[in-house]
């Protein structure tokens, strides 16, 4: 698990991280999408409780070794790091996962 902003630059460009941070800070709902080869493809969060969860339609999903799932935790979520529900689901969809926590102003990256 990588939480250090500088170390993340090994995997993601600073412009991309800044863009993800900007989107996340400006939203009360969880932002979600996929990062493929340094490009972010935002997807609609289809969860009925968008402020606490995210859900991407299976038809919108992208798959592959270079695909990274991104989502944000909005400001009201105090929890640091990935939630256990995030990690439980990561086992099933089996993608690397990037998170930005607005409250803690930190990125978290969990590489499989």
């Amino acid at each position, binding site marked *: 698990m990588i939480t250090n902003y500088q170390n993340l630059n090994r995997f993601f460009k600073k412009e991309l991280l800044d863009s993800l941070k900007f989107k996340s800070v400006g939203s009360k709902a969880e932002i979600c999408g996929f990062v493929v080869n340094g490009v972010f493809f935002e997807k609609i969060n289809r969860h009925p409780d968008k402020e606490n*969860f*995210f*859900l991407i339609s299976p038809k919108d*999903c992208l798959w592959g070794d270079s695909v990274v799932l991104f989502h944000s935790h909005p400001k009201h979520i105090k929890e640091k790091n990935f939630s256990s*529900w995030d990690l439980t*689901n*990561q086992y099933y969809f089996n*993608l690397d*996962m990037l998170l930005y926590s607005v409250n803690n102003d930190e990125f978290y990256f969990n590489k499989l």
Partner: protein
Amino acid sequence: MINIEFKGILAKRLGEKWNLQVSSVLEIFQAIEANNGEVNNLFADLQNFCTHFIVFVNGKIMPPHLLNSKILKNNSEVKIVPVVQGGGISVVLFIIGLAFSALSMILAKSMSPKSPKDVSTSSAVLGQVRNVVNRNIVVPLGYGRMRVGSAVVSNNIFATYDGRLYGNDQNEESFMKKTLDENFDTIFDEFEIQAGWLRGLTYS
């Protein structure tokens, strides 16, 4: 053939793409289990998979109650994908992937072989090996490399009379007696059945 595609952990564990001659989604898992034995290894996890996967058949979400239905036609495309979801709090409030809830139950039932009924036998054909018997069971038609054992043959013997074979000078009873006289030893000796009691009843 049916084109099957897995995503997520299923792709990693079972392989991403399969072409199988199957007619239902359940048969997909049975066929893969027959090929690589991985499904049963995953089975403990499948209990937990029930809320994390969705099955698409030709691009449409398949309702769970059709899992064991013969809905797959030649060249159908089946895609089984995990639900990409998560959340900032660790309490699960919403569950979407219902497709596997029924599957896990069906798999549990269908992949547990019935216990064959043990019988004692003096058959010389199979030597000292203990025989098992169960009438009218399904016999798997295997292909590929496999290890086989136990119930590999299912047979059933019955006699019928279709009323066409005896002539004007014979009635049904005499025809049956003549037929049995001519064929009794051939028919039953081949199966090594000690049928003296039957012979006695027939000729009394």
